[in-house]
């Protein structure tokens, strides 16, 4: 990466200091609570799968029973571990028996906390080893079928039908896409469970289910092999089932996950505490599974103005970075998000885009930045749209971005047609290939518009982070600091899933991951 902007390193350092304070506040909240979704995730990681006769996923059924009994504060691990020891059933059989009311977790003999812990801890270690195998498999495949150079070509499929998605994904992968994201059926974020099985009727996207993950993973593995080019798979680790999806992704070898510390709060009105607790555990799983996360700062610019609110994007990236690092994610796993969303009718808007992209690049030199395409100013003029996507690609190759979510010429019209995606891939390949070394060739003028714009955004970022660290993040969010959106501190969906931990609480996976990821006491 070429250092083209002369940035004030002290300012960057103080941004990180403020963010560290912000993360301390959040860390306290996290350590005191667990959530229904975290507990369901424990069950999934242990191997619980399937649904009951009403189609309700077993992890929900089991956790709900314990929660209703008011006993979730100890953690599901104790109850389920205890029952495993007592019944001698396999994980899945036990789960099924519980769902059929043949075993009542709360009405069987209770073993010693220590004994259960040791047992379940070892089981967790074993299961974690399975995830590690996936990481090794990925490394092996990536070695054998190397992905293209960065910026990686990231495309979405969004038909709502996993089998139709597969066709589109394979077509794109064979044309050179490096990454395929299966867009999720709209507002799956708000489901407090994960749907089950292969699905064909999503809305504006396809449900994230473990079966769908597997179907797509297999399809992409096939193409990876045939084309000699590993194709990465992405889904959404977001919403009320955030950590469960992380677990499913770890199991099915997804490579990237949309996973933001604040997206749910801001854009889905999910309760703050719930979100912060869930993102913590989900990120730990992602960290362990070698998954690159994609944060969602681009969303801010769909409602707020990209010129005026540029600093909120950077501020949010600092927060996502800090909270991410504390869960054991390596810098190389932090796909911080930003977007090319400035009104192109503004004179020199492209210079402002370059300023922002280069700024972010230099502030987070190791992050696999995820760059989102123009959407807001796209209209029905598909020819102009294709050009705007080209300018976005030029900006990317000029500033060493890592993950390029390809813009579609039909952005303002419909979810991508097969040909739209093909034209976007062609567009990106054309620009990236013909200007491959551009970023290494140019420097920016010391007192130029680009430098000044970057300085300004960085200054405003430091200011706002200071403000947030003074006030606290939760309070700041409640006042509408990001994306012009205000959220009440204790309102929002899913608050009933937040459970205060008792002193006896344990989650064996957190312990295993902390050890393996070498997260120290302060959470770094």
């Amino acid at each position, binding site marked *: 990466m070429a250092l083209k902007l002369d940035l004030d390193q002290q300012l960057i350092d103080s941004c990180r200091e403020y963010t560290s304070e912000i993360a301390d506040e959040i860390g306290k909240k996290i350590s005191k609570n667990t959530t229904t979704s975290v507990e369901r995730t424990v069950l999934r990681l242990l191997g619980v799968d399937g649904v009951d006769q009403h189609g309700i996923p077993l992890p929900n059924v089991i956790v709900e029973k314990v929660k209703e009994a008011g006993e979730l504060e100890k953690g599901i691990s104790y109850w389920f571990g205890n029952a495993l020891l007592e019944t001698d059933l396999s994980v899945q059989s036990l789960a099924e028996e519980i769902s059929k009311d043949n075993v009542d977790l709360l009405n069987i003999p209770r073993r010693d906390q220590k004994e259960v812990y040791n047992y379940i801890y070892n089981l967790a270690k074993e299961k974690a080893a399975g995830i590690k195998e996936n990481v090794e498999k990925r490394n092996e495949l990536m070695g054998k079928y190397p992905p293209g150079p960065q910026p990686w070509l990231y495309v979405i499929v969004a038909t709502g039908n996993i089998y139709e998605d597969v066709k589109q994904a394979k*077509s794109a992968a064979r*044309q050179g896409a490096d990454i395929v994201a299966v867009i999720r059926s*709209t507002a799956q974020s708000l489901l407090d469970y994960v749907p089950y099985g292969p699905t064909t009727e999503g809305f*504006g996207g396809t449900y994230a289910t473990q079966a769908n993950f597997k179907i797509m993973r297999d399809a992409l593995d096939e193409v990876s092999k045939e084309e000699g080019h590993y194709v990465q798979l992405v889904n959404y680790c977001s919403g009320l089932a955030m950590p469960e999806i992380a677990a499913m992704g770890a199991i099915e070898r997804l490579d990237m996950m949309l996973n933001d510390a604040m997206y749910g709060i801001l854009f889905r009105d999910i309760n703050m505490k719930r979100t912060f607790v869930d993102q913590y555990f989900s990120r730990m799983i992602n960290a362990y599974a070698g998954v690159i996360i994609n944060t969602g700062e681009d969303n801010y610019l769909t*409602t707020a103005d990209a010129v005026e609110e540029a600093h909120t994007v950077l501020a949010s990236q600092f927060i996502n970075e800090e909270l991410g690092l504390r869960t054991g994610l390596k810098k190389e796993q932090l796909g911080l998000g930003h977007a090319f969303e400035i009104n192109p009718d503004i004179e020199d808007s492209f210079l402002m885009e370059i300023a922002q992209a280069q700024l972010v690049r230099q502030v987070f030199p190791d992050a696999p930045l995820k760059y989102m395409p123009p959407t807001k100013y796209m209209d029905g003029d598909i020819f102009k749209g294709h050009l705007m996507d080209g300018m976005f690609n030029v900006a990317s190759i000029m500033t060493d971005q890592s993950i390029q979510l390809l813009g579609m010429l039909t952005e303002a019209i419909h979810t991508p047609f097969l*040909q739209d995606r093909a034209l976007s891939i*062609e567009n990106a390949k054309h620009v990236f290939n013909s200007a491959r070394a551009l970023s290494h060739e140019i420097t920016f003028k010391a007192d130029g518009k680009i430098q000044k714009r970057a300085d300004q955004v960085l200054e405003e970022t430091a200011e706002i982070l200071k403000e947030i660290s003074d006030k606290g993040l939760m309070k700041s969010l409640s006042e509408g600091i990001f994306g012009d959106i205000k959220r009440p501190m204790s309102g929002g969906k899913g608050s009933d899933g937040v459970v205060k931990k008792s002193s006896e609480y344990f989650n064996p996976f957190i312990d295993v991951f902390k050890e393996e990821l070498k997260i120290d006491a302060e959470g770094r």
Partner: protein
Amino acid sequence: MLKDDKLIKAYGDTYNDGKIQLSFTLPIQKGVEAEEAARIYCSKLGLKDIEVVHMKDLREGFTFFVVYAVADVLVNTDKINVAKIEAEEMSYYEINDYIKDKIERNLTVVGACTGSDAHTVGLDAILNMKGYDGEYGLERYPQFNTYNMGSQVPNEKLIEKAVQENADAILISQVVTQKNIHVKNLTEFVEILEAEGLRDEFILVLGGPRISHELALELGFDAGFGTGTKPNQVASYISQKVYEKFENNN
């Protein structure tokens, strides 16, 4: 042929040469047969002088085509009949004065993105203070009482609110049109109103990037506003329409 002829066709570089551009994908392996398939497909649309100028293998048995051809059909410009919103566009000040002078009370509007639609930007552009493209939104108008219910509002809830506030107009935004979800949603809305005998209580205004006035009328709304609508256009329409109703009732 003369330029002021009423019978028109597409124009490439010669008057009424009928030249058009098409692009599409066919589920067929790239090759001469595919090219011929594209030609047959176009000829079944009655196109002539079909030139397949580009073919691209999209893999997995799909091929993309770019075609130029002649569309030898005519549109009689004298016979174009299109429903238009019958309201004179007024400015912010003119509208407020109009309401004060002619209607002599504040107007009340209730707006929402209904169903599963979460695209609030368009509705906000019309309703919020800030407005759109240099024009203030309805909230800013002293003569309007504006309720913006935001996104994903069920039809029933919206109607409830409109009744409660004794609204003059209900404003609905629909942006997502995949699989014609909006048509389903909007039809249901009007059906509920009719079933409850409330249809004539409100002026029904629809908006969104894929909405035309024509479509709005078809669906039983009073007016439809598409891409680039400005708040004052909507306010002009509503105030004039309320006045008209008022006149009719007196």
